[in-house]
């Protein structure tokens, strides 16, 4: 979704003056899936917070991204339970299939790859999530079929 300053203005307005900076940034992140530079400038102006502070918060928390995300976000859990059950090899397989590293987006902007410390589905580890759909008990050979559901242009596995 492209950034539209008018939308952001309403976001900040709706939450009122007291809304903490983090909550505002969370809303922007969830709407645009990243924090556009223009948005951070606008937040700084509207909320009267120095841009340096906005940037500091935006770069401290893992949930914020300063780069646009792909259409589908693939998240591989690297929590302890997933780690001892081989999540590293699952991640390697995703990296190989998509040819990107964690934090990166494919050139066609279809997929972004992320890692996360724990998703709370530890009993089913290793866990991979694509667009909110959880894939439990992952093995490297289940990676491609999982990604295929999303890569053929269709959105049929998408979880609304």
């Amino acid at each position, binding site marked *: 979704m492209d950034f539209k300053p008018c939308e952001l203005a309403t976001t900040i307005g709706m939450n009122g003056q007291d809304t903490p900076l983090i909550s505002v940034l969370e809303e922007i992140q969830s709407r645009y899936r990243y924090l556009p530079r223009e948005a951070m400038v606008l937040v700084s102006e509207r909320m009267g917070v120095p841009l340096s502070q906005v940037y500091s*918060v935006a770069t*401290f*928390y893992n949930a914020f991204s300063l780069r646009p995300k792909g259409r589908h976000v693939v998240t591989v859990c690297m929590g302890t339970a997933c780690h001892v*059950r081989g999540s590293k090899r699952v991640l390697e397989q995703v990296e190989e299939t998509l040819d990107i590293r964690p934090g990166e987006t494919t050139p066609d902007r279809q997929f972004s790859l992320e890692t996360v410390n724990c*998703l709370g589905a530890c*009993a089913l580890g290793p866990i991979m999530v694509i667009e909110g759909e959880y894939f439990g008990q992952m093995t490297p050979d289940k990676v491609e079929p999982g990604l295929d559901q999303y890569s053929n242009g269709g959105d049929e596995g998408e979880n609304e």
Partner: protein
Amino acid sequence: MTRIATPAELDSLRRSLIQARDPNRRVIAVCGGTGCRASGSLSVIGAFREELRDQGLDGEVDVVATGCPGLCERGPIVVIRPQGIFYERVTVEDVSAIVGESVLKGEVVERLLHVDPETGRRATFKEDIRFYQKQKRFVLDQNGIIDPTSINDYIELGGYSALCKALRGMTPGEIIEEISASKLRGRGGAGFPTGLKWRFCHEAPGETKYVVCNADEGDPGAYMDDSLMEGNPHRVLEGMIIGAYAIGAQYGFVYIRNEYPLAVEHLQMAIDEAEACGLLGKDILGSGFDFTLEIRLGSGAFVCGEETALMASIEGRIGEPRPRPPFPAQSGLWGKPTNINNVETWANVPIIINRGAEWYSSQGTERSGGTKIFSLVGKINNTGLVEVPIGTALGDIIYDMGGGIRGGKRFKAAQLGGPSGGCIPKEHLDATVDYATLQELGAIMGSGGLVVCDEDTCMVDLARYFLSFVQEESCGKCIPCRVGTQAMLDTLERICAGEGREGDIEYLIELASEIKRSALCGLGQTAPNPVLTTIRYFRDEYEAHIRDKRCPAGACQELFVSPCQNACPAGTDVPLYTSLIAEGRFTEAVAAILDTNPFPSVCGRVCHHPCEAKCRRNQTDAAVSIRQLKRFVGDHVENRPLPSVTSRANPAKVAIVGAGPSGLTCAYFLARMGYRPTVFEKLPVAGGMLAVGIPDYRLPRDVLEREIQGIEALGVEIVTNTSLGQDTTLAQLQGQGYEAFYIATGAHGGRRLGIAGEELQGVVQAVDFLRDVNLSPGETRAGRRVAVVGGGNAAIDAARSALRLGAERVYVLYRRTRSEMPAQAEEIEAAQAEGIEFRFLVTPAAIVGDGEKVSAVECQPMELGEYDRSGRRRPIPAQDDPFQLEVDMVVAAISQSPEATDALGDSDVETTAGGLIKIDGNGCTNLPNVFAGGDVCSGPSLAINAIAAGEKGAVAIDQYLNPDETRIYSWRQMRPADVPFDPGAKAVEYGRCQTSELTVAERSAGFREVEGTISADTAVREARRCLRCDCRETEM
């Protein structure tokens, strides 16, 4: 929703809800928690709704998405009420059967029931499942029952009655007193007494106060807080409202991580509903008490679980911790007194208020009341959430509730407390899980993550994992954490990459203690714990990485080529010979084996094949049958190629004592280095235990002899009937010009049972019996009714041999259960098939004689007690009465011991108290020219270990005799396999090959070999199943 204005109105609402509830109403309760969603429960819920609609039942049967009932591994979980039938792993395809059978007819769909992995029994109801039986679920009791999005469900089951009780009849001081008396301690990690914490905040001066629920459950591997908020959010709210009232707080926050979207959703719904009912907001239940609650989302920073960082984050700043004091109770959010507890702590509060401190504190230990929820995850069968009284034994959690280790692997350690915690090894399975005991062992209770590690988990890699986690999550404010943990991580990464150095362990310990002492907050101060505990309990694994550049668990990929080769003690290049077999290049394949192991056909029959346990093909279907491939190629190639031999002769005389697998392997490698070693053997035959310990039906004599001849062909002389100690001594051999010695006399002594009647005729040692069976099969007799005592391979060999010698009934008496038996599983199965009767949990108390002969064995029934140092339950005499088994022969097979002391005579070779020869990692004894290996050093062990020791001994001897030469031992070098490999090709899909076996009737006729060799076609086919883990490059 109407506002509930008074406690009386709440009571009447509850009564009307109960009255309206039809106890016979049919309900399909499907777990809608995150775990079961990952297993597809949302589609199952959809399918149920559709099926009911199609059948016109949607008005009569309810479908409820509940919170997590705990047994997440088996999800999606479906419970059919009113009967309470418990189904697991339900898929969309099962839906119509469940509706047709269970909902309409009230019958049970057997195939979807839980099966006990040990007994094989099916359980219809939750109460019958062992996972639940020893749990005490007070906090989780309503998870899986109520609809978490309905406040009425919660109220109907007594929800908010604790709040009523508190507001109606208790002063804040009384509530705090009750919480103190309950001995509730913080469930978030540090275990601070909750009542005391509340009192501090209550007594702090100031009008405005806050309560906070720390739901930033960042400890990876712990998800009980997630599950509580998803499955029963109102209980958390109720606890917070009571706490706020007691403390005097008007505002509250739930700080919850955004990685838990479902928990956020349910919690927000609960807050909205509670507000609408008047349970939050102004004048709650007419008490005049106001309390407002808001959610704050964590944005993915582990450090925000630390309370001062958490408060900074709620205030909208970056989550950097600050020094304490001041503690939050004095100066918390916006400088006001603040009380922070975690989710599980808050959820315990309504239970304490309702049931009273006295009852609550009667659960748990003297110093710590109540229960603790653990998320039991990792390499365990029943992963999920368990709630147990504090003070439960760790072994009970892992084995009784967890159902033991996945895939029959061995338990190695439990990791508690995540990045701030530590691991507990099998030696401490009897430890009780309480704050003090865990701390003593180097771990912490933490928030309750209990990650089970098995033999495939590398403890150095685990330490590296946690350090890299901490390093990534360190906020960077203080130098000990930011720089210190990086220095530790760098060291661990070097060790895992095979670049470890002597002194690294000491360096890690030194850094760790400095960081613990000087870091600013809890995250930094506890960050070294995983490293310190792994060093404390698994120092040998660190040393293997640093000194031998070896990862015993097969996890550190830089240290090996393929997991199977890494698992082989002798380092046999499995992918090389497997891929050669796949190409039909059998001669080259056997040459590849012979390069590191002179016994392909022997090991192809008797090896424990640790390689197969590590085969990655296990993750898709079953391991490649590596042992069978080795056997095939060993048997199939008639003219074996000679292994590489150095052209230069080494004239030094070397004596090897003992012609077992270790001694012969040592001789084999020495011969390849140009020596002409002499092997002295006490027995009339060469082969050691391979010849006199293993019966012919497992290892025919001619197979062994062929491989011994192959060793002799290299110029090795074997002198039989010559015993060290009796016929010659080390000193005499030295006098004859021998310059170096390798002692490998094995462990041929039997251990006595130590009970009355052992001197009777008919009581024999398994080693003696098996030796007689092997050396003079025609003259050896077994009894008519035989009892073999023991659980190892020797016991099974003795039992199966006795049967072949004509025994009518053969018993194996073992004091533990089948799952603790050390014998190979395939041996036990074969013995059972042949009709051998296993009596588990039985130990012989006495042998009864009729005159001089054995007439019976008196057996004491046993039961399993506490966990011992081996991580197994210790057998203890049970209450049951002893019984007698009528037998005329008793075979003692409880252990074998070395006879080193006799052999060594008056030489100065150092031995242990148990009579084993002491050696270092290279096979050197305390004397410079004496080396040793095999069972005489390790105690009874596997043939492949003895073979590996023989090679080490040979290299050590060569280095001793030629100290000035730099030699390259060709078989220790890696060779790239010159076998084509297409990384893009799909792995073949067919399963593991079958092996032919004699029928049971054919076996009893004598000592014919039971198992057959696979055909060349089958071998090629099987070899193609190999996934070629040795090829790491993705592009050729």
